[in-house]
């Protein structure tokens, strides 16, 4: 995860978490406050409904009292009650007239056995037994109840009160009431946020349709009598609930603003994070890019050290590091130059010594012949002329190579067998060492400089002879064909093996390092020169431990595309 993304991720919670905490807290506080306020309003409404019912009941009762007084004073009613037949129609119509006069919606006149003597709202229900109303007259507290009164085609709900009175020897009762309908219930819910529902076992009247958010509830319980289908005294409930719609609306508004604020905060956080990360990562990226461009050949990188922040501190560190690197590199180059000159001198020394060795050997042999067999001197000189010429030619080629001061090798078809033979001819071999060669047939020419090929062979053979220290041993040279592939012509594998002391694995790993030698007085350059020359010819060299004792150096050189 990049530094920039980490900064972005870090900024998001910083921007959103406080908003979330604020939003949740605000919602919780608002809910508590509003719910409490709603509860207060609902309870106040319930108290108002109780008072309203009481007031309406008292109003009905006052009318019943007036009707009672009139009834007691009514002689025709009195005659009807004592059975005067001619007054029976008067009795039957009495409640109707009284009901209309009193402004009631329901009125019954009952005797003390619950039988209807006259009914205002249902004229022809006379003589019917009405136990519900009788119950109201007898046992209901305050003689006030919600009564579902029967009509010919159904029923209707009234808030009823009852009054008893005596006419002669009869105890009579008036039960009267006023209609409770949806309008009445709606009037109870003056606040449109309130829902008032009158719930009876028969049905429900509500000021408005139920709302899924109606929650805060208070209720008023009122005795209920279903006179239309008498089932005893029951309870009706006037339930007041408050819609939490306003709260939900407030919440929705808060949520909307919260979402908007969150989006804005997130956007601002992202922009700020981008800016911060850009401010931080850009100089870092520049430092990285400049540091990445640093090489031994490019030590000119500059770092902005003028900043006074952490980036500036880092730049100054890199600047100092760069300065030290530049001075170190200069010293290193000087050392390398010196080392290269020294190596070159050593190499020249080594090569010259190798070229002079056959000449020294020739002259020693010549001096010995001159001392011992002077007459043979001309013959000996003649016999060794070719060798001497070859040695001189080697030295001349060597000198020419160094004169050019280049590592580029002149490559031409070169006979490996001839190079092996010439090298072996000039190789000083102690008496305890036997040198043998196994030159394969059909060995192709390799693309090489003959002097270079000879230098390779001389170095390998001298090392092999030197490895046989004091005891009898054998040095062998073997050539073989390396099959070509596709367009690559066949090459030559030259193996120089000895039966000497051999090399450990550690010695083999370091064998090609410059100045590394296991021989007393060795320069440690022979194998280094061999590897470099082989590589210059496009070949490769490897050391193979031999079974038993000794070491084998295997050189593979690419074949020439032209015949030698």
């Amino acid at each position, binding site marked *: 995860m990049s530094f920039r993304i980490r900064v972005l991720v870090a900024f998001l919670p910083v921007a959103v978490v406080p908003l979330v905490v604020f939003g949740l807290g605000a919602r919780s506080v608002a809910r508590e406050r509003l719910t409490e306020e709603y509860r207060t309003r609902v309870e106040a409404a319930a108290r108002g409904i109780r008072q309203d019912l009481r007031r309406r009941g008292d109003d009905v009762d006052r009318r019943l009292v007036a009707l009672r007084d009139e009834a007691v004073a009514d002689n025709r009613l009195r005659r009807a009650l004592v059975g005067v037949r001619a007054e*029976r*129609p008067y009795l039957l119509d009495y409640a109707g007239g009284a009901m209309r006069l009193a402004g009631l919606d329901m009125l019954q006149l009952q005797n003390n056995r619950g039988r209807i003597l006259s009914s205002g709202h*249902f004229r*022809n229900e*006379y003589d019917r037994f009405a136990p519900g109303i009788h119950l109201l007259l007898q046992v209901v507290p305050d003689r006030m109840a919600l009564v579902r009164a*029967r009509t*010919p*085609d*159904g029923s209707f709900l009234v808030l009823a009160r009852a009054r008893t009175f005596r006419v002669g020897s009869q105890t009579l009762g008036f039960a009267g009431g006023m209609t409770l309908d949806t309008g009445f219930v709606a009037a109870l819910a003056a606040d449109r946020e309130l829902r008032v529902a009158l719930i009876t076992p028969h049905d429900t009247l509500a000021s408005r349709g139920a709302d899924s958010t109606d929650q805060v509830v208070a209720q008023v319980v009122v005795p209920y009598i279903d006179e239309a289908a008498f089932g005893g005294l029951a309870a009706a409930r006037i339930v007041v609930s408050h819609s939490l719609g306003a709260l939900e609306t407030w919440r929705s508004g808060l949520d909307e603003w919260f979402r908007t604020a969150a989006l804005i905060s997130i956007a601002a956080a992202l922009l700020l994070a981008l800016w911060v990360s850009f401010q931080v990562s850009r100089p870092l990226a520049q430092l990285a890019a400049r540091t990445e461009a640093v090489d031994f050949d490019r030590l000119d990188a500059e770092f902005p050290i003028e900043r006074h922040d952490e980036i500036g501190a880092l730049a100054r560190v890199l600047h100092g590091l760069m300065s030290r690197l530049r001075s170190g590199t200069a010293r290193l180059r000087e050392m390398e130059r010196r080392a290269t000159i020294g190596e070159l001198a050593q190499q020249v020394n080594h090569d010259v010594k190798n070229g002079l060795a056959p000449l020294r050997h020739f002259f020693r042999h010549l001096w010995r012949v001159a001392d011992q067999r002077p007459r043979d001197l001309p013959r000996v000189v003649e016999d060794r002329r070719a060798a001497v010429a070859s040695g001189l030619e080697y030295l001349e080629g060597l000198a020419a190579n160094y004169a050019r001061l280049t590592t580029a090798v002149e490559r031409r078809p070169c006979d490996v067998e001839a190079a092996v033979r010439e090298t072996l001819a000039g190789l000083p071999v102690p008496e305890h060492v036997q040198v043998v060669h196994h030159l394969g047939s059909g060995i192709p020419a390799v693309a090489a400089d003959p002097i270079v090929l000879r230098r390779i062979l001389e170095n390998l053979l001298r090392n092999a002879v030197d490895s046989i220290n004091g005891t009898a041993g054998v040095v062998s040279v073997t050539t073989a064909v390396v099959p070509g592939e596709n367009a690559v012509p066949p090459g030559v594998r030259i193996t120089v093996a000895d039966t000497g002391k051999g090399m450990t694995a550690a010695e083999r790993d370091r064998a090609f390092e410059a100045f590394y030698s296991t021989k007393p007085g060795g320069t440690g350059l022979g194998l280094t020169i061999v590897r470099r020359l082989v590589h210059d010819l496009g070949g490769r060299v490897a050391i193979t431990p031999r079974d038993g004792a000794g070491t084998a150096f295997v050189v593979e050189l690419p074949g020439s595309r032209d015949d030698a």
Partner: protein
Amino acid sequence: MPSSGDTIVVAVPGPIDPAAAPLARSTGERILFRQLYQSLIELGCDGSVRPGLARAWHASDGGHGWVFTLRSDARFWDGVPVTAADVRASWLSHEIAASDAAPWAGAAADAVTVVDDTTLVVLLETAASAVPRAFADPRLAVVKRVAGLGASLGTGARWLDATAELPTAMPVAGRSGPVLVFTAVSGDPRDAIDAGADAVLTDDPATVAYAAGRAELASIPLPWDRSYVLLGAWSGDSAPDGAALARDAVRVEARAALLPEWWTAASQCEITVGAPMPDSGARGPIAYLRDDAVARAIAERLVVIAGDSARARGYGATELEVVLRRGGAVAAVMPIPRMVFDPCVARRAVRALSQSLPGGVLPLVDVRRRLIVRSALSGVYVEWDGVPRWR
């Protein structure tokens, strides 16, 4: 509207629309139209047949055809002689349905043939040995429609003054008698009396009692003209007591019902009625005509007698017919006329109403109206079916 001179103000149950003639829809229209229009024959107070527009008639084709000869002096109010073609056109114009009042079967265009100006033949489906009384039905009165005139022309002894504010029946030229001004009673009939009406037709007991207390008013009981019956099944334990209903439940002058004679006489009629509607099956309340206070009172009392689950409900006339045909009521409290022109026609009408109701016809109460008139008033008489007329 106090009367003056030869003008008599008649207050009747409304509404009154002269344009509806001759098909009366209310008691008021029924009384008004009786003053204005004539049928081919008329019935005397004893129910005997007497000439109307037709001076003579006789049977043909074994009683399947009846030949009527019009009076030569029969005139419309505009003086134009009444022809047999006018009679046929009149019957065609208001399209008396065969099941309603007409004695013939099918369309009048097929049943009525004009022979000449004064002769027409009416073919009956069932042979009649005597001239059918249905030809006296006011619904078969002869009228002539005139474009632009509010009411049809008639042939009676009074003509309708269409220009008057209230329906006014004027004596035709050459005839004497008072001018009759008809007004519909709305609200308390006593208000009509106090406003100067000379005759008030009412069944309101308070009005009757009020008139009894005023010496200048006379209360003439009209014949028991309606019987209220329960059509359909009765669910109570015992049949309703008609006398009790008449005494306590019904607030008009009533008595325990006696089925009219024609009901028994019509038991032999071949009655075919339309099939009930597909979803018929009696259920629901006891139905009654919403505007009929007597039927409502009876139905409400029946609800009390039948028990807590019973209900009663009032309907308009058309709505009630549909409800009954669909079986939307378990029973119906309906009035049937006690005097009819044709028992079979009347029986068919009742049967059509009650065909989807289970059970039969239970007579409940008979009722009648009274005609409250000023004592000094003369010339009023009551026809055989209880309709008052003025000479």
